[in-house]
């Protein structure tokens, strides 16, 4: 009997505590930057597409909901010809972001993606690509890679010596 009254009392006291429930959607939630929501494709500091079409995100995805095709521009810079995420399958695990060697694919704190029609959850590159570097500013993969893809010449990259002169036998 006493314990019963005590429980009622405690519950009653909670009415005067700070409320956890928020009045969504009038009131917005504040999410942390590392919250795993909507997936975007970002751009490098020079506003070039960051994704190099390496297929690692697709391979890492446990539900296989990423599919893309790599292609190259006239300079040999690789980028995705198409990039598709089927969000009706995505489980927002963030493995793709973890696998991405270029910081291209990122999960951002936004979950407002609901649709009435499942087909509308299939996002193409146009829907994914944003004009921002996202969470990791400053990184440009093509500047640290050895490849010359029109971003920097051979030997002009980060921490790279000028190309070897094949005709020289000097030590």
């Amino acid at each position, binding site marked *: 009997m006493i314990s019963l009254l005590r429980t009622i009392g405690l519950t009653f006291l909670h009415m005067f505590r700070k409320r956890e429930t928020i009045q969504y959607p009038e009131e917005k939630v504040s999410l942390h930057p590392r919250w795993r929501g909507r997936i975007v494709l970002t751009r490098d500091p020079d506003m070039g597409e960051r994704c190099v079409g390496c*297929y690692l995100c697709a*391979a890492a995805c446990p539900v296989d909901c990423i599919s*893309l095709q790599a292609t190259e521009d006239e300079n040999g810079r690789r980028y995705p010809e198409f990039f598709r995420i089927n969000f009706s399958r995505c489980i927002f695990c963030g493995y793709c972001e973890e696998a991405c060697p270029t910081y291209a694919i990122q999960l951002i704190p936004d979950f407002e993606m609901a649709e009435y029609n499942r087909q509308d959850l299939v996002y193409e590159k146009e829907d994914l690509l944003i004009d921002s570097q996202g969470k990791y500013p400053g990184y440009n993969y093509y500047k640290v*890679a*050895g490849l010359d893809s029109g971003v920097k010449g051979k030997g002009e990259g980060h921490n790279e010596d000028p190309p*070897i002169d094949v005709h020289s036998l000097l*030590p």
Partner: protein
Amino acid sequence: MSLEVKKMAIIYIDHKAYEVTPGKNVLETCLTLGFNLPYFCWHPAMGSVGACRQCAIKLFKDEDDTRGRLVMSCMEMVKDNMYLSIDDPTAKAFRAQVIEWLMTNHPHDCAVCDEGGACHLQDMTVMTGHTYRRFNYPKRSYKNQYLGPFINHEMNRCIQCYRCVRFYKDYAGGKDLDVFAAHNHVYFGRAEDGILENEFSGNLAEICPTGVFTDRTLKAHYTRKWDMTTAPSICQHCSLGCNIIAGERYGELRQITSRFNGEVNGYFLCDRGRFGYEFVNSTNRVQQPLIRSKSSDATDKQSLYHYLKNILATDKIIGIASPRASLEANFALRKLVGKENFYQGIPEMEALLMRCILYILNTGHVHSSSLKEMESADVVLILGEDPTNAAPLMALAIRQAVRREPIQKGEMYIAHPTQTKLDELASNAAHLSPDEIARLGYAIANALNKNAPLPENLNANTLKLAKRIARILKKATKPLIISGTSLGSESIIKAAANVAFALSTDDKKASLSFIVPECNSMGLAMMKAPSLMHAKETIENGKANTIIVLENDLYRRSAKKEIDTLFNLCKEVIVLDHLHNETTGKASVLIPVATFAEAEGTMVNNEGRAQRFFQVFSPKNENFRESWRWLDEFRQFKDGINPEELKVPDDLMTEMVASMPQFKGAEAVTPDADFRMFGQKIPREPHRYSGRTAMLANINVSEPKPHEDSISALSFTMEGYKGMPPAPLIPFFWAPGWNSVQSINKYQEEVGGSLRGGDPGKRLFPKMPVLEKIFMNHIPPVFSPLPGEWQILSLPQIFGTEELSIYTPGVAERAPKPYIAINKKDAKSLNIIENESLQVQIQDQNYTLPVRIKKELPDGLAGIPYNIPGMCGIGWPAKGTLKKGKT
């Protein structure tokens, strides 16, 4: 199984005893035993050089030695009572350090590197445990070179293992790839930018353990190894039937890699085979059934069925088979039209040569040599063939026979009208007319065995050469005779047979190998049907009025006029093919069919080996159906079955063997469709295959049910048995920790040896003598050119001659432009110099061709590249007249 018992050696690895075969190196022995020992420079086909220092292990003096010393396992031979350690901390640290050093200069490229996911360097780095870069200084960089349409160059990724030059220069005889500069600046490339000339350059993509050399055609539609749907397949581009793995993604064929077969192609492929696949993706594919008499051309399956049902019921039909279609397809045609109305789609000349070859190989007095066996021949005699162009991988095998070091070098003798690439290795290369080649062959046979006929009026030089060759052949323990159909000479083939017969004894048969024109020429010949000429007669006599042409462009077979007449006499011309060509242009009913990548089938290679290729993927276009499926349906109509009640044919191969026992064994070259590994099918896709729930989501977000494969033990998905499939069913090579092609090690009984359970394919020719050994006598008279008339020679071209590979832009780029080759003397008599044009009349075709002077050509012979675009439609053998052009 040989009864000889090999003495085994006992070695101790990390205190555990193993029984191993002596005479192998420690590295391959450890790999055979299943250890994961990293290596770079050693390759099972090329041996060890000890250059990379990656395979270090500890070797101890004896059981009590605890210090031991570091050795390179690839450089140590297995000896009895060897004490080794792989896990020794010093050895492990050494191996990790070697990788760390290599990585100090390695670019940060994996994401954009085509090797990634199939990279031996990645695998070895993970294996040694090197994970973090401690070296902070700048990386070395190199400029790349343009190496042609097949191979991409990215020199920064090189780890200086020297495999590329060892393969290209030493193994394949290439001249234009080398190592330049010195110390830590060494550079692997050409002296200057330009196309890699060697016919086997594509193998660099597999030989190079890194992404320096990669497949350029793959780059154009890049897909990682793990994302491809692959199936075991057979190369369609010459008669050798090299084993390939064909990979598909998004409905397109994307890559061909070598599928190891110890008896056939081993680790390698030629560039025609590796890169000639793009015809499958060609825009020139026949997309829909057409009935040309109908107002709107394209038609659907139902109206096609109804149209054909009437024709099949009333018309008198003959069937034209094809040397590039599978046995199944050809047999389905034979069943449809009946045995007596079934014709080989090849000219009488070729049919004759094939009959002759079949007879010789079926006598049982000669051994039809596999490519593997060729590699160990000690004397090679080539009569009238240019293997580098006609059957490229055979040239690679012969090269190994001749350069076998250090034991003893093989010897080679060549007789061919023009210079061939193998001449450089030959002890003697005689450039003779076809008739003289045959006479030389007969003379050799006579010098070996007096019962063989001797040509009359032999000139002294030829006789001397014949005697010399005979003497060498007699001493040989493994002589090999090579000939073939390229020059279209029956006499040469018979002369080659005589030499082999003369060398053969009852217990030791001489090896003989014939190069035949196409991938299934041998299989078709074994069906023993009359040639195209007889088909024409039948139509001309009015005994038939409708013709069904199976996967065959008849305009490539014979003079244009003849084929025109043939088609004009037919009421209906029904053509089944995958690409539009001149023949499909004449079709009144045109039916699209599947290519090798979209179909399953069996072929017989030049050796008489039946091999099966499997369907790689289900094409998006449902009209791309196997020829045998269409043809069997037509047969059902003929038998009165309605289009609505069609059935899938039961096992065509079994039925075929029942009606043609010469194919016995061909039905069982692979496990059948009910075969399961622990109740599961063998998946065509690796377990890392990605994008399943997204690749078709743009069309419909609900994924369709995957296609089912009811005719084989393979599945089109990634689900199924994950372990090692039986050898004929290996869709891709992969083992835990081994993502690159180097994983083949794990699939072999003994590293470098045959696949577990035996190499796939089954030889159909008899082992035992079945016919009497009778020397052939078809000696041509002395060749003497007639004034004003030239004998036209067909010169096969690795790039250009083959009908399908030409659809790959790179192959077309490498194909020669039409030309005519004559010698200096003839050029002088025509008052013409190199590159000027000649008016050439062959039969009733006129060509204007630039002249190429080949000084070795005998007088009165003019060579033209065989069946390259623009030069088809010649009836062989051909004579022609040459006149200086007016321009």
